[in-house]
């Protein structure tokens, strides 16, 4: 039984070492905030519509979409981090 447990722990360590930290962070986030990934298409949609209502040229719309995605994602990410931090502190 001990052997099985220790092999399991070694496997878990190896797995966590091989996974990139970004993937672990995303997995933790998905576990802590159920349904968060359903918000990502909405950020993309809002960025696309904002960009397309500010430009006419398709290339400019594409660039502005990336620009808005970074800003919206960043702001919402900061808010989410603050909420999670407050929840963790309480």
């Amino acid at each position: 039984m001990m052997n099985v447990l220790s092999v399991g722990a070694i496997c878990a360590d190896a797995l966590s070492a091989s996974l990139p930290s970004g993937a672990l962070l995303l997995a933790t986030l998905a576990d802590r905030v159920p349904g968060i990934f359903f918000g990502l298409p909405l950020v993309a949609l809002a960025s696309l519509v904002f960009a397309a209502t500010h430009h006419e040229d398709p290339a400019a719309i594409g660039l502005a979409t990336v620009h808005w995605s970074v800003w919206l994602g960043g702001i919402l990410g900061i808010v989410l981090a603050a909420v999670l931090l407050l929840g963790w502190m309480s």
Partner: protein
Amino acid sequence: MPESLEEVGALAQKSPDGMRGPHAAEPSRSLGKRIVAISPDDGSAIDLHNPALAALLAWCVPGLGHMYQGRTLKGRLFMGAILGTFLLGMWLGGGRVVYASWKPGDTRWPFVCQAGAGVVALPALVQSMWLQGSAKQPLFALEFMSPPLSPGQFVSRAYAERLTSTDPDIEADFFFDKPPLRQFRSDQVSLWHRRLGRWFEIGTLYTMLAGMLNVLVIYDAWAGPMGGVDGKAGTGEDRSKKLKA
């Protein structure tokens, strides 16, 4: 006064500081009987045709106003993005998240946002008006976009039987027999929440955001792009000040 769209575009490109001529001072200008906007990207003129009609079409079907103005690519983009999101939200929410209800205790405020998506949300309004009174039945099959029954609500016997046979959440003993009507004794919104869980909220969010973003699309059809001529966002007033400077 320039006579053609090409002349407006040429005027717009003359200014050296990114403010490209008098037509950049306002989002849209009258060109004889035509109303044009200036593209923020290349300073070319955009014929807005009839802006009020374009805005109305953009509300009815997202992107249709742009197609009417000949801005086909943006029209298709808006149509796909906004209608796609609205329909995806409807699907995620089990087809129950879009309804209009102004009953005390069940005022459906999200519908105000959802209505921005245009005619796709109108069946909810029709159902809500059609169901005023106790002996009515929903107009469309499967209670499509009909408001939920509230506790104690009286319905016709035919509607109660129809709900019992078609709605998996509702059973025959959910109604008191009060001839000639029947009285609902459960809360249909609670039944939906129990079945759909968080998908109800996610679907509501998707449909609300689709409706709210269509307001921006309507403004774009009415007044042209919101970006400044130099590619940065700015109001007509800002641009007028820069132009005077």
